[in-house]
């Protein structure tokens, strides 16, 4: 008995040691460095093949090879935290809505790129619009390059077409969201299987406020500025009449049955259950949603698109502090953003094997071919990518136009430094989440609002507001 165990033990140790040495037995070609780029997404089966082709283009141009590593979306945040915390050597990483840009900067995970771009990748400056660089600037330095895609938000209402036709609803009557109330009533009375209104998890109160106000600090959805205010005075949202109008209307709609009763706790129900949904819109979205839900939609844009810093920093590429080849890393970013052939290779794979070209602009992705659409917005300028079937032909032009023509926030490039007031922020976050139901109409507004305001004041919202204001003032002063 003991002997068997001893043998097993010995075998284990042997196996372990062997496994160990495998890790160490890797050789690198001395003069051509390999750069590693971490990106969220599912692993691609044909990655090796695509990698070969990528390097065929890259090596002659910049003398380096690229290894794109996909990390599962759900694990990406945690993994990147660990990678950076443990000092893992890598070169490029996606940062934005996950692996948050400001956190990376604060924790020292990515490096400033200004000098590197000027020296090594000057054409990047011309390839991307100036407002992107403005938005990404933190204290005068840029730490990552935004991957150009839809940046400016604009709010829309999405109607199910068959209902619009059935009840002969005139969409051009809809100028403000309040205008849809008669339609909601019709749906409530005549279509018991559907929910009339969906405020969504992110739009909600913005429906009433977004044409006038902008959220000055995204961590708390409470401090706003008037978009037209040159001095950017910070206002508490519950001091604005638009906010009050909004929550009263939502509550009214909830009571009338236009909003589902379990709105606070409902899981992501299918959009096809709602007659009208409030959404953030971009060109081509209607087609995408139609394809996904299998029903026809009509979208009405409500407000002019507006670009905020937050909107621009959702998808970016940064260079790691542990990178041994930051110059080459920046050159890769330049290539990805300017070389359409390389870019489409990364996004869609090899022509013929993973997709077929329909014409110069359109392609058809071949499903189950070993490489699927890896997400253009994860790597570079989305507008350089081929258009997949189903999207309108001018989708990139329209998107670019929406970006260019959007009103720009005066706070582009402003980042709120919360270090001095961390505990007040923590408290305010807690209150905000505690009272988040105020935005979905499920609670009695008057009593709730009073408590919300009281607790926010107690939590120190005024301290946060004062700090935010002083930092904004300093930012504006420096801008001149």
């Amino acid at each position, binding site marked *: 008995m*003991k002997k068997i165990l001893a043998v097993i033990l010995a075998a284990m140790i042997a196996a372990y040691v062997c496994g160990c040495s495998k890790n160490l037995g890797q050789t690198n070609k001395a003069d051509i460095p390999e750069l590693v780029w971490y990106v969220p997404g599912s692993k691609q089966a044909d990655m090796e093949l695509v990698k070969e082709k990528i390097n065929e283009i890259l090596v002659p141009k910049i003398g380096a090879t690229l290894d794109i590593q996909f990390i599962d979306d759900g694990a990406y945040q945690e993994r990147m935290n660990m990678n950076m915390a443990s000092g893992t050597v890598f070169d490029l990483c996606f940062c934005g809505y996950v692996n948050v840009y400001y956190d990376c900067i604060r924790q020292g995970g990515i490096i400033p790129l200004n000098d590197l771009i000027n020296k090594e990748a000057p054409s990047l400056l011309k390839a991307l619009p100036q407002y992107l660089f403005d938005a990404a600037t933190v204290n005068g330095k840029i730490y990552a390059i935004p991957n150009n895609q839809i940046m400016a938000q604009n709010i829309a209402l999405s109607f199910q077409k068959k209902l619009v036709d059935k009840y002969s609803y005139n969409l051009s009557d809809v100028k403000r969201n309040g205008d849809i109330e008669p339609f909601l009533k019709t749906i409530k009375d005549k279509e018991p299987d559907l929910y009339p209104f969906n405020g969504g998890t992110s739009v909600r109160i913005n429906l009433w406020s977004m044409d006038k106000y902008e959220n000055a600090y995204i961590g708390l959805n409470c401090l706003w500025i008037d978009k037209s205010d040159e001095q950017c005075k910070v206002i508490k949202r519950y001091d604005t009449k638009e906010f009050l109008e909004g929550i009263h209307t939502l509550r009214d709609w909830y009571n009338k049955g236009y909003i589902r009763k379990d709105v606070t706790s409902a899981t992501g129900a299918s959009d096809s259950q709602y007659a009208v949904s409030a959404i953030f819109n971009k060109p081509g979205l209607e087609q995408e949603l139609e394809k996904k839900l299998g029903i026809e939609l009509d979208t009405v844009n409500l407000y002019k698109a507006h670009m905020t810093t937050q909107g621009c920093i959702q998808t970016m590429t940064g260079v790691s502090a542990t990178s041994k080849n930051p110059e080459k890393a920046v050159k890769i970013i330049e290539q990805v953003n300017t070389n359409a052939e390389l870019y489409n290779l990364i996004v869609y794979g090899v022509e013929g094997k993973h997709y077929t070209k329909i014409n110069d602009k359109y392609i058809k992705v071949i499903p189950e071919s070993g490489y699927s659409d890896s997400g253009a917005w994860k790597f570079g300028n989305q507008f350089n990518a081929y258009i997949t079937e189903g999207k309108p032909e001018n989708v990139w032009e329209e998107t670019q136009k929406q970006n260019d023509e959007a009103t720009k926030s005066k706070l582009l490039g402003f980042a709120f430094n919360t270090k001095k007031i961390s505990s007040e922020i923590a408290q305010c976050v807690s209150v905000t989440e505690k009272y988040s139901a105020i935005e979905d109409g499920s609670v009695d507004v008057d009593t709730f609002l009073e408590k919300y305001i009281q607790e926010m004041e107690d939590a120190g919202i005024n301290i946060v507001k004062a700090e935010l204001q002083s930092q904004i003032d300093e930012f504006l002063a420096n801008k001149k």
Partner: protein
Amino acid sequence: MYKKAVSQTILKIALALLAVLIIYPFILLVSVSFSAEKDILSYGYSIIPKTFDVEAYRYVFKNPMALVNAYKVTTLFSVAAMCLGVFFMSMIAYVLSRKDLRGRNVLSFFLYFTMLFNGGLVPTYILMTKYLYLNDTIWVYILPGLISPWYVFMIRTFFNGIPAELSESVRIDGGNVYTIFFKIIIPLSKPVLATVALFLFLAKWNDWYTAMLYINKENLVSLQYLLQRILQNIQLLQNLNYGAVSSLMNELDIPAETVRMAMAVVVAGPALIVFPFFQKYFVRGLTVGGVKG
């Protein structure tokens, strides 16, 4: 006689009732997994599927190779961890059960301290990847947490209950610590060792966090992590607040409610099937012959 039968029946009914209450959600789970997606969205969960539909399972088994592989890997490291864990933990539990051992309290505290204090995620990660090179190997599933103070103390308590006379009788025959351990203690402790083995097996079987953090190679991914991956994508979407992102996130594939349930069944099912194997070790009483005094 009659009284006994009646009280037995009452007990059985009570237990049966309890079992039904407890298992009800699981039955719901199975039912949802065999339902049509649109029924769930329109009517919610129901105990009997309105329309019997195996679409969810078809989706889950779409990539059978990944699933089969995950099963293989998970079974391998779960069984390995279970065997090694029980073995090593009973060693230290026995040592701790010896009241005559010098420094026993120190050893006990040494072990217990680790239950409360741990360095946190970052130092552990650094140790495992930078110094031990355990990432992307099967050992990262097995080695950490092999010695769980919780179970060690449980086993030790059980060992305390084994009468001293039995160990003495071995000594008389010229045995030493090892003989006592292997010849007396282990064989008599089947119930508690089986319990710990079961718990350890299940803990490893359900482990998804390790895979998420340390595994990159697809062929080393654990079963629970496959499920968790899908569920996490959904959580991610629901937690996002930013408009620009929510519209771009529509490009991600969101699996249906029924698929989530199906995956849960696929993952939990085998563990339940395994349980009866452990049950046969729950044998009543000490069955060593010849040591009655």
